[in-house]
């Protein structure tokens, strides 16, 4: 048995997962069919804020096939409160968060009744015959108004709509100067307010959950990113002993943070199954998903930047209002705080202050969405760098170059207190400019302006960094997060030399099975095909912190590497015995142990030979346990800091306001790469989502708090037809804080691209008097901005149109 000689790491392998996914062989949660399975449907509130005065479910209970109807009153005593794991301040206000409303609804889409029936069809029919009487309350939608004196309250018992105010001040923290001083001393001050519109994660597979209560354990299958966290939280929320709960995340069709949640639907399916003693399935409709699964972004960002006339920045003050929606979900409260460390970005601000007020409104709760706090921060600071350049009459790239951390200055401790281990902004930028043809495009831009071309050209820059690899547990502790940031892995050496890798990361589209196999193939010198990766089932993968925050590779794969090291250490003892040498004299290379210095032709024992010998256990050294299996739990010492330079050229049709992306170049530095094909896919998908925020997507509520973008015909997720051909490349500054040298790539494209696109749009029309256009930069907004300078036309239409052609879909929620 010869091991692979060519390293697996770095190969653009096609993914192991794809055959079963593409051919439909896999079983998604909704494909599960258990004996005696019954189906649950949820009646949701059409009101954003109302008291429930009566629910009449008597007719529904008589409908064919209906087994039970539950209201909030029926489940009030056992549903507990949905968990929030991030009390960002000691005095943070958090309302009780029922899975099903008991006497009051706080957002449109909140569950008010459940029907469990023999078929999904009968359950859906019965929903229609439940009568709910509501007493409407004033609706709180606007964040600024919500925190003003005398505002109507979302939760009257809290006495305020402000959940918490979180502050970081570099002067107080000792990481920098006093920003107020910097602003008052400044030669130039730029103040801007930006709006991060509300987005919907819009994963492809809607959320689905099946609970089987008939075994010794409750088994929950859920389309979740976090089976491990979910298990712990179910135990804590529902007072079920943890060892009596097993959670399985089978193949999951995307999450983007949207499935980083302990959902009301999971709890309610659990409760229904426990009540009925039968397996229960709930599979949400697309409309329910858009309406009630958590949303993302939604901030008002007041930015104040101070600088010298030569372009050197001297201070940055960030004042945020962040919309929590109606409740604090799992990490809702902490999402804007993740951005707190990123507003200073790659720039050497000597003084920095961040103040964020978390605000309740009568909208769907917000929580993690791809990037989670960091896209918001990156957008604002990258827009501000462009504004500063305009203020000073400098090229926007020159302003950035003047202020960024130079490659020889790494490791660099920022004004926010993070230490960036590695990076080379000069190299990524130089490569991007060359691929983009920066100078030629600037020349064309000048030409078009001079001749008054109806189609103007704009160039947008985003030189971004982000923090990935959530996270060092001690840092999470200092931020009052409710858990650690480690990850677990185990490696099982099977008697035939095959390898099972157990990971606590929980893939939902990323390709862990392929990447982990490549890593383990190199680590143990076994063929790629001989590695099986087990994940997503708390019974086989009993310990984990799951997948989000671009953490899988930097944390999860490092646990795999450490487990492999332990396997090799155990194997070395056996190998030495088999080679009749001392342990110190054997070395491991290409999957086999040899006596040091004896060359490739010398006698060797392969890892597979050793696995078989250990299985037999006939002749092991004294005191050696017959077991190579090993596990490891890795806690990172630092975040990782991917960075990159993204350049976007847009053509803006000044007659119609239409924006076309003419070219998009990104050069990302994500450290070492395990599989370039997977990286390419992550970058493309990330760019699509970031561009979507810039140009297409927005969750819009009307004045009554009804979501008017409740279908994918209204909520405009772009397809390949709407996106340009991406030019992608990489530079490589390996991370110095993990032995793989990796940094994470899951969120980079999303974080970087939004400001690149918006900067390009503004750059195209700035000479026409435009300094800002709210996202998404729709044709009407762009056209109105050119005509009137207004940045915010349109967007809040409650009338029919757009969606199903002229059909107004916002009236119904089902």
């Amino acid at each position, binding site marked *: 048995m010869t091991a692979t000689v060519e390293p697996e790491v770095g190969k653009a392998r096609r993914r192991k997962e794809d055959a079963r996914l593409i051919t439909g062989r896999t079983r998604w949660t909704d494909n599960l069919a258990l004996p005696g399975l019954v189906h649950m449907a949820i009646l949701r509130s059409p009101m954003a804020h109302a008291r429930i005065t009566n629910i009449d479910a008597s007719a529904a209970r008589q409908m064919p096939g209906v087994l039970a109807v539950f209201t909030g009153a029926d489940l009030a005593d056992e549903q507990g409160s949905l968990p929030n794991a991030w009390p960002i301040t000691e005095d943070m206000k958090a309302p009780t968060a029922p899975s099903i409303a008991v006497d009051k609804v706080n957002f449109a889409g909140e569950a008010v009744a459940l029907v469990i029936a023999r078929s*999904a*069809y009968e359950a*859906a*029919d019965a929903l*229609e015959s439940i009568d709910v009487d509501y007493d409407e309350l004033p609706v709180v939608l606007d964040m600024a108004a919500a925190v003003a004196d005398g505002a109507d309250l979302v939760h009257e018992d809290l006495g305020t709509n402000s959940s918490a105010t979180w502050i970081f001040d570099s002067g107080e923290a000792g990481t920098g100067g006093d920003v107020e001083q910097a602003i008052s001393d400044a030669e130039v001050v730029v103040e801007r307010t930006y709006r991060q519109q509300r987005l919907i994660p819009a994963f492809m597979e809607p959320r689905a959950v099946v609970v089987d209560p008939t075994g010794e354990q409750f088994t929950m299958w859920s389309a979740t990113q976090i089976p491990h966290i979910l298990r712990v939280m179910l135990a804590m929320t529902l007072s079920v002993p943890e060892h009596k709960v097993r959670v399985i995340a089978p193949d999951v069709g995307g999450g983007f943070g949207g499935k980083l949640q302990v959902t009301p639907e999971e709890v309610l399916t659990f409760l229904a199954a426990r009540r009925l003693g039968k397996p229960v399935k709930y599979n949400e*409709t*697309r*409309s329910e998903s858009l309406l009630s699964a958590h949303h993302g972004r939604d901030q008002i960002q007041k930015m104040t930047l101070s600088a010298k006339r030569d372009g050197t920045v001297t201070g940055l003050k960030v004042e945020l209002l962040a919309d929590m929606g109606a409740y604090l979900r799992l990490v809702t409260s902490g999402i804007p705080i993740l951005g707190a460390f990123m507003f200073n970005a790659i720039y050497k601000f000597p003084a920095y202050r961040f103040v964020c007020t978390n605000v309740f409104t009568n909208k769907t709760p917000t929580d993690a969405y791809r990037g989670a706090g960091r896209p918001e921060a990156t957008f604002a600071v990258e827009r501000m760098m462009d504004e500063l350049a305009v203020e000073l009459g400098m090229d926007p790239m020159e302003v950035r170059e003047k202020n960024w951390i130079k490659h020889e200055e790494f490791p660099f401790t920022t004004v926010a207190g993070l230490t960036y281990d590695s990076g080379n902004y000069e190299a990524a930028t130089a490569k991007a400019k060359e691929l983009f043809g920066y100078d030629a495009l600037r020349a064309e831009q000048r030409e078009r302006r001079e001749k008054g071309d109806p189609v103007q050209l704009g160039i947008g820059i985003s030189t971004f960094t982000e923090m990935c690899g959530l996270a060092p547990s001690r840092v999470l502790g200092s931020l009052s997060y409710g858990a650690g940031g480690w990850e677990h892995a185990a490696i099982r050496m099977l008697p035939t030399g095959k390898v099972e890798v157990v990971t606590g990361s929980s893939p939902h589209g990323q390709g862990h099975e392929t990447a982990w196999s490549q890593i383990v193939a190199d680590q143990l010198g076994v063929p790629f095909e001989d590695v099986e990766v087990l994940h997503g089932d708390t019974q086989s993968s009993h310990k984990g912190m799951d997948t989000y925050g671009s953490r899988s590779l930097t944390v999860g794969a490092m646990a795999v590497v450490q487990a492999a090291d332990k396997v090799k250490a155990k194997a070395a003892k056996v190998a030495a015995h088999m080679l009749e040498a001392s342990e110190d004299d054997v070395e491991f290379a290409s999957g086999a142990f040899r006596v040091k210095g004896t060359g490739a032709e010398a006698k060797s024992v392969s890892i597979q030979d050793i696995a078989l010998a250990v299985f037999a256990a006939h002749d092991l050294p004294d005191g050696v346990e017959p077991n190579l299996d090993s596990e490891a739990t890795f806690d990172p010492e630092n975040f990782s800091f991917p960075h990159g330079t993204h350049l976007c050229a847009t053509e803006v049709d000044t*007659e*119609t306001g*239409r924006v076309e992306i003419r070219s998009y170049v990104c050069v990302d530095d994500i450290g070492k790469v395990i599989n370039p094909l997977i990286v390419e896919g992550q970058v493309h998908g990330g760019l699509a989502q970031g561009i979507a925020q810039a140009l*297409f997507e927005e969750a*819009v509520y009307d004045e009554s708090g009804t979501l*008017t973008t409740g*279908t994918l*015909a209204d909520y*405009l*997720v*772009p*397809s390949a*037809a*709407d996106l340009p051909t991406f030019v992608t490349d990489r530079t490589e500054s390996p991370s110095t804080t993990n032995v793989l040298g990796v940094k994470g790539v899951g969120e980079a494209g999303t974080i970087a691209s939004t400001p690149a696109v918006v900067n390009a749009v503004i750059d195209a029309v700035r000479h026409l008097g435009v300094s800002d256009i709210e996202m998404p930069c*729709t*044709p*009407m907004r762009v*056209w*109105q901005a050119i005509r009137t300078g207004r940045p915010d*036309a*349109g*967007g*809040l*239409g409650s*009338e*029919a*149109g*757009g969606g*199903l*052609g*002229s*059909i107004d*879909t916002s*009236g*119904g929620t*089902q």
Partner: protein
Amino acid sequence: MIPAAFDYVAPTTLDEAVRALAEAGEDGKVLAGGQSLLPVLRMRLAAPSKLIDLNKVAELRGVREDGDAIVIGAMTTHYDVLRDSLVAEHAALLAEATGTVADPQIRHRGTFGGSLAHADPAADLPAAATAMDAEMVIAGPGGRRTVPVGEFFVDFFTTALGPDEVLCEIRVPKRTGWHAHYEKFNRVAQAWPIVAVAATVRVDGGSIAEARVGLANMGPTPVRATGVEQALVGQPATAEAIKAAAEHAAEGTNPPADGNADAEFRQHLARVLTSRAVSAAVGA
């Protein structure tokens, strides 16, 4: 997304279909390609008690020539319209507009007649049919009648079709040799247009001899832009002349307002897009 319960019949002839519809009465609904009806049913915005599925009625499919018109069966799919040589030769505008309908999957399912009978003023084909002076051939219990396109569309989702009538074919006058372009303005590829312009013109000796312009999403029905048609006739087929004439494109329109566009922006778009559509049609 489960529709309310309904009965279902799938007749194989038009006569059977008409009878089935008459029997169903007010609660019957004709199912063509289902690309508009099924979402509406699944969202429970409508709940007809009986669907009469026309997919097995072979006589409603296909394109034939009939003197100075081509006749398109109501159940002809967009895909079949797109690749039909008679349509390409005599009704280029229809082919252009059909090519922009939604996405390939929908074009293989959706039908020409279904789109017209649904009568969404934001849809592509009603505007194109308007510009083509199409005639709707309607079958009912009392026999057949023919309705000009201008009288077929009555209001949002409302046509001249009686509850017991089936749109069976569409007669499209031949516009052989006419120039045509469908200019669609939407935010993402699969979306309905914010505004779209269906334009077809006959050029004679470098001047525009005849012009037909239909507008999508500029009112409760597709709009025939007669003002701009009149302004175009007799003009040289140049970009400047066309642009001047296109200033009349929004005359008399009462477009809807929504999150994508207010009425003013739609009227502006109608003018800009009409200029572009006619210019593209004639290659100006």
